[in-house]
């Protein structure tokens, strides 16, 4: 009888630990909306893509080197088409604090602009700080940092209605 109790106790403890460890899910960015293949990317997934660096001044007034993946590459992987119709599409970016910004899809299209916009996960070779990451959009040369949205959780492609 005692043995059974011990076994039951151990199994309950292990079950609880697996549940709680599962609750601490790895952070992801979800890519949804007008896509053919919705994606859910972890930091490890992001490292499978070609990495690009962007240098940008932060609030401290100093240059920082951000590394990540060009947004257009991620959208291409999700099956977003860049054609005449996509001129009325936009990308809605959501952060975990509720902050939202948008890009017109053409702003992300290499055939329209040389300005690079990446989904970064490192700054100066280190993972982004908890308040900024794990994912942050970095817009090259944009005067205001307001669209360098921190703690990104979702990218959604939508049609302007």
């Amino acid at each position: 009888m005692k043995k059974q109790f011990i076994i039951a106790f151990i199994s309950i403890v292990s079950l609880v630990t697996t549940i709680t460890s599962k609750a601490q899910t790895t952070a992801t960015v979800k890519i949804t909306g007008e896509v053919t293949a919705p994606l859910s990317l972890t930091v490890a997934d992001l490292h499978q893509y070609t990495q690009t660096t962007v240098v940008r001044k932060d609030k401290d007034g100093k240059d920082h080197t951000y590394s990540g993946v060009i947004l257009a590459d991620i959208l291409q992987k999700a099956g977003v088409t860049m054609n005449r119709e996509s001129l009325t599409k936009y990308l809605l970016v959501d952060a975990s604090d509720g902050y939202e910004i948008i890009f017109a899809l053409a702003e992300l299209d290499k055939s329209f602009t040389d300005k690079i916009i990446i989904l970064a996960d490192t700054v100066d070779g280190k993972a982004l700080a908890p308040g900024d990451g794990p994912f942050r959009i970095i817009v090259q040369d944009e005067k205001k940092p307001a669209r360098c949205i921190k703690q990104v959780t979702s990218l959604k492609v939508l049609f302007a209605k």
Partner: protein
Amino acid sequence: MLYNYYRLKVSTKYFLKLLRARIIKAVGVWFLLVFSLVLSAWSYYYDEITTGAYHFNYPTNFGNRINVPDNNPTTKQGVYLGRMLFYEPRLSANNTLSCANCHKQQLAFTDNRPFSLGVDQVETTRNSMSLANLLWTRKFFWDGRAASLEEQAAIPLTNPHEMGQSLEVSVKKLKAEPEYPALFKAVYGDNTITGDRICKAIAQFERTLISANSRYDQYLSKAYQPSAEELKGMELFNTGPQPEKGIRGANCAHCHGGVKTYLELFHNNGLDSIPKDNGIEAITGSPGDRGRFKVPTLRNIALTAPYMHDGRFKTLDQVLDHYSDHVVQSESLSTVFRGESNDIGGRTLKLLPQEKKEIIAFLNMLTDKDFVTNPEFSDPHLHSTKK
């Protein structure tokens, strides 16, 4: 004789006249009585039920990014029913509480308590939220867990420490009331009462709770000239501090910005290093969400004490003191509170006592008397019985 005859004739004439007047009077009184009874009975059920699409009336500067689900368009009859239900104590387990017990109009739909008492006399875990300008809201509750007012409404109705009654029981109770089946028919086309329909109607009413006539609105439409103190407070509210340039500010608008003083953001504002209530972390499991709660609207803020998700601050002075001097550092403290200061190298805002007073003067401009006295938002049951 002639004289007598004449007298008789006159008196008969007079008598007949008197009789006629009496009859007319009596009939008149009875008619009036019956008429007014019928009218009041009729008006009890049908008064004010105009039907058709409900037109939201708000200033253009509020913007049109409104949130009305396609499957619950707002109608005048839906709003009417929703108002009846918002003030309906039969929706609670002991028939004593309605939504309005924790959301009182005169307090901008809050209840002046840190936590509210449910049907079981147990306190809720978070502070009752003001219901203003929900038409533009997309994430409800302190942790933003509900995506619509329809989804939101079901939770306090059924929570055992709030109204504590299943929707099934609510449906049964409403069916037994003479006025409700007909009202549901007017709104939904047939007199079936369901939990879903109850929540939809309540949501329709709540969307009409628009607060857009504060002195701040009047200032924006050039109908009010603020005092020097209010103007200074407004400037501090809207400015981020840059001590190296000699610019002073409180940066409130960073999170409470825009005409609606609401941006639908969720932050850890440094109340505790180890929070008792983990906020959004309890849903996402992400340590970055620890102690993170909704940044609420500041509309009618002078009426909605106590403040914060746990109602820990009794006054706006205490709130200003917190942001100025007592923000607690932690891993999940939102970045907006890190290193924002009016002192070079300061860790907290460091506002002057006078500046706090000025900001509070501006916050008082956000009180909307029309909103808290608008008869269209008041208890319709009281209204009916008073007639």
